[in-house]
């Protein structure tokens, strides 16, 4: 066979307490030498199971290959049926002829071994190198993945490296024996956007240099558009459609594929549109897009020079030795019925900013005015009352609901806290809220574990709406959801905004989503807003260097617009920790266009 991999009617089952459960069924596809095949699907689609089967790692997770063949063409030209291979043969293949990288770089390395040891043990095993030869090769590998200061890194331990660097080490480990096939299972999902761009570029370069085939698993259609030669779409353990990347994106055949593509926000498709617009999902064609209500701009939220610093304790008496400048001199306004998106990468302070505004953490200085009231000047009793005006929706739908309380009680909690209703009136109000978020009333008596992630997030939104707030802070509220569910929740949020005149402070790292939903966008870096203005201005005319860096790193869900062929190296993100007493300069902005401000470096 000329293909390097040929999967043939694969069926994998998992043993559970209630009998065998099918992981994947009737999966067939091929990978030609040197090509990148992306397997894409949402959670539960079976994409990971497929890749783990190819490495016969699925047994360690309780799965069995029940039927089908997994043919792999080895170095020496022979054909190996992985499904029937002995452990000894698999031991030869793994890490040697097939390399694999996983999703979580933070836990992928053994915490008590040095980087050098973890790079060399595979080499010494498969290639019979001596310690000295292996160490030399390890250094080469670190250089090929462009890790800064490679000599020093060899002797370090994993916890001394950042997430992006660890993922590079993992890639180096996988490439060590020059495999002909690299399996990458969601390798960039846990990484920041700029780091993701670097890793994707790295994989592309290594693939070119080594003539390697890549099996790339992801849920992110934009990444697929960037990386794939061919695409395999999976849903609930079965293959839905396969084709070249152009075919899939421009002429999808199956309904599921079409629905999936419709739900993906594409960076750039809001160009020229004046206001946020709901996504046109499959099944929505009947309802025409509603023109946005024009409102008289009225200020709801005013943030003035907000600063929040967290103490770093250390030393003998646990004194404060330094401070994390999480939020530094932030100012902005948000109008009634509008959305301001705060974007940035991890550690930029966007989450802390949201929490500071809601007074879930105490800011160090600055003012927050909501509806004409200075929140910071309120006494604890009035502050508690004021919370009715400002609510929050959190990122993790599984952790933001108490597993032991019924959903109706949790949605009712804010109402009960403020004594706004009771008895039959309370029940009616809760029912209304469930209706509002398009959840059946039968869910009211259920517990969180009975609902899916998207449904739970709707419950969280219902809870946030319970006391008619004016402002909702959505802290990565859709980031943990599957693409199709994310689109539905985004639409719901936009619908609620139109109907109720809600304002959102939308915190996110996803530029494409932000482009959809935001009226105004603020880009954060190291606790400061580096650029803020109307969405169109920020996306069409990014001025600050960081904004430009960020936008250039975002993958676009259109194979005609590929960008990561060359090696990328972005400026590493600095640490916001400063010694005690350090007085940073105040934020000064230039107005490059009406309403569009850029931080002076």
């Amino acid at each position, binding site marked *: 066979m000329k293909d390097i991999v040929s999967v043939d009617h694969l069926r994998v089952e998992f043993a559970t307490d209630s009998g065998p459960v099918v992981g994947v069924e009737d999966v067939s596809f091929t990978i030609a030498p040197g090509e990148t095949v992306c397997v894409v699907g949402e959670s539960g689609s079976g994409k990971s199971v497929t890749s783990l089967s190819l490495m016969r790692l699925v047994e360690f997770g309780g799965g069995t290959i029940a039927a089908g063949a997994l043919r792999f063409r080895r170095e020496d030209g022979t054909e190996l049926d992985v499904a029937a291979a002995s452990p000894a043969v698999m031991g030869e293949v*793994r890490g040697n002829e097939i390399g694999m990288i996983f999703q979580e770089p933070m836990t992928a390395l*053994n915490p008590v071994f040095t980087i050098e040891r973890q790079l060399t*043990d595979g080499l010494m095993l498969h290639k019979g190198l001596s310690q000295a030869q292996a160490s030399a090769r390890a250094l080469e590998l670190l250089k090929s993945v462009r890790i800064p200061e490679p000599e020093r890194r060899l002797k370090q331990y994993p916890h001394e490296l950042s997430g992006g660097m660890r993922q590079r080490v993992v890639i180096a480990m996988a490439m060590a024996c020059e495999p002909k096939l690299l399996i990458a299972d969601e390798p960039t999902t846990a990484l920041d956007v700029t780091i993701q761009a670097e890793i994707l570029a790295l994989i592309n370069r290594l693939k070119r240099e080594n003539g390697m085939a890549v099996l790339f698993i992801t849920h992110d259609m934009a990444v697929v558009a960037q990386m794939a030669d061919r695409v395999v779409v999976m849903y609930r353990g079965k293959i839905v459609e396969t084709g070249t990347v152009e075919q899939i994106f421009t002429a999808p055949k199956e309904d599921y594929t079409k629905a999936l593509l419709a739900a993906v926000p594409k960076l750039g498709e809001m160009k020229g549109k004046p206001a946020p617009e709901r996504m046109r999902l499959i099944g929505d064609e009947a309802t025409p897009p509603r023109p946005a209500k024009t409102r008289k701009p009225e200020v709801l939220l005013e943030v003035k020079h907000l600063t929040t610093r967290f103490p770093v304790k250390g030393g003998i008496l646990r004194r404060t030795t330094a401070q994390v400048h999480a939020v530094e001199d932030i100012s902005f306004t948000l109008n009634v019925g509008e959305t301001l998106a705060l974007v940035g990468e991890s550690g930029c302070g966007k989450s802390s900013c949201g929490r500071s505004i809601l007074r879930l953490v105490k800011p160090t200085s600055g003012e927050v005015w909501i509806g004409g009231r200075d929140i910071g000047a309120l006494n604890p009793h009035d502050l508690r009352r004021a919370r009715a005006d400002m609510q929050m929706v959190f990122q993790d739908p599984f952790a933001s609901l108490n597993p032991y309380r019924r959903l109706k009680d949790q949605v009712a909690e804010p109402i009960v806290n403020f004594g706004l209703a009771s008895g039959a009136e309370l029940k009616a109000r809760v029912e209304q809220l469930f209706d509002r978020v398009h959840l059946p009333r039968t869910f009211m008596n259920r517990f969180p574990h009975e609902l899916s992630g998207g449904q739970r997030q709707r419950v969280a939104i219902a809870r946030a709406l319970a006391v008619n707030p004016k402002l909702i802070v959505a802290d990565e509220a859709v980031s943990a959801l599957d693409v199709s569910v994310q689109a539905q929740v985004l639409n719901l949020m936009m619908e609620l905004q139109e109907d109720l005149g809600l304002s959102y402070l939308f915190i996110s790292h996803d530029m494409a989503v932000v482009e959809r939903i935001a009226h105004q966008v603020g880009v954060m870096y190291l606790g400061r807003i580096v650029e803020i203005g109307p969405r169109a201005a920020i996306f069409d005319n990014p001025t600050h260097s960081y904004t430009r860096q960020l936008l250039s790193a975002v993958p676009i869900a259109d194979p005609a617009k590929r960008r990561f062929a060359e090696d990328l190296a972005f400026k590493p993100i600095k640490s916001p920790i400063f010694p005690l007493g350090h007085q940073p300069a105040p934020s000064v902005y230039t107005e490059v266009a009406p309403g569009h401000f850029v931080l002076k470096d």
Partner: protein
Amino acid sequence: MTYVLNRLLSVILTLFLITLVTFAVTNILPGDVAMMIMGTQSNPEALEGLRQSLGLNEPLIVQYGNWIGGLLTGDWGTSLIFKKPIAELLAQKAVASAIIVVMSMTIALALAVPLGVWAAVHRDKWQDTVSSSASLMGVSLPDFFWGIVMILVFARWLGWFPSSGIVEPSEDFLGALRYAFLPSLALGLGLMAHLTRMTRSTMTGILGQEFIRVARAKGLTERTVIWRYALANAIGPVITIAGLQIGYLFGSIIVMESLFGYTGMGWLTYQALLNRDLPLIQATVFVIAAVVMITNLIVDLLYVLIDPRVKLG
């Protein structure tokens, strides 16, 4: 360096608190101390004499101060029942108990770690079932029961080891070990059962982590994955758990030494409690608590050597 200093300060503070608690438990609880020692029917004059000699009529703070002062200067008081200086008694008996503690912990760890790893590797198979059942039984039997069984089997029936008594290690080290063996074995078996379960659950947790999967994906043999990659991560937690058991061990030696007539610290403490020898009670309780705390400190510091993520300072 700051880490070490931190811990030292912490240790001193805790030692101070330990003296407070010891004093509180033995003196502040309801009941007349003199009557506690001599019995409620005693002659009131004799009671008063005792109160004077023990300084019981002074305010509590003063009594406490006197005691602390004594501790710091080396005057640990005189035992009421043994009529000897307490410091001397403690020194004599400490070594004997140390032998038991070290022996039982060694026996326990030597058996528990391999057994626990074995069970974790063969999780959910017959090996795991056998190991788990055996350790479950071991944990459920009281220590002194093991002691009785040891006595019946090894001493009475087989006659290999003495059933009671003790020999000074300075006189006859091997003989001392012989006398210490049965009590240590009895303690060690109970401890081993517990440590096996802990090792198994620690290993199981580690084997479920991502880096194990990555190691397998590199093509490393299962043997390497378990005995190098996984075990290296398990040593730290297991040692910590074993260290925490020292406290439990010190409680158990009280029973075990009495059962075997082995006159070490445990036996001494028991005699003190039985006869309400107040100065001796205070001293032994304090020493045991202090030793437990210092052992935990040592285990913590050891952790710094084992786990590269924990740094000094």
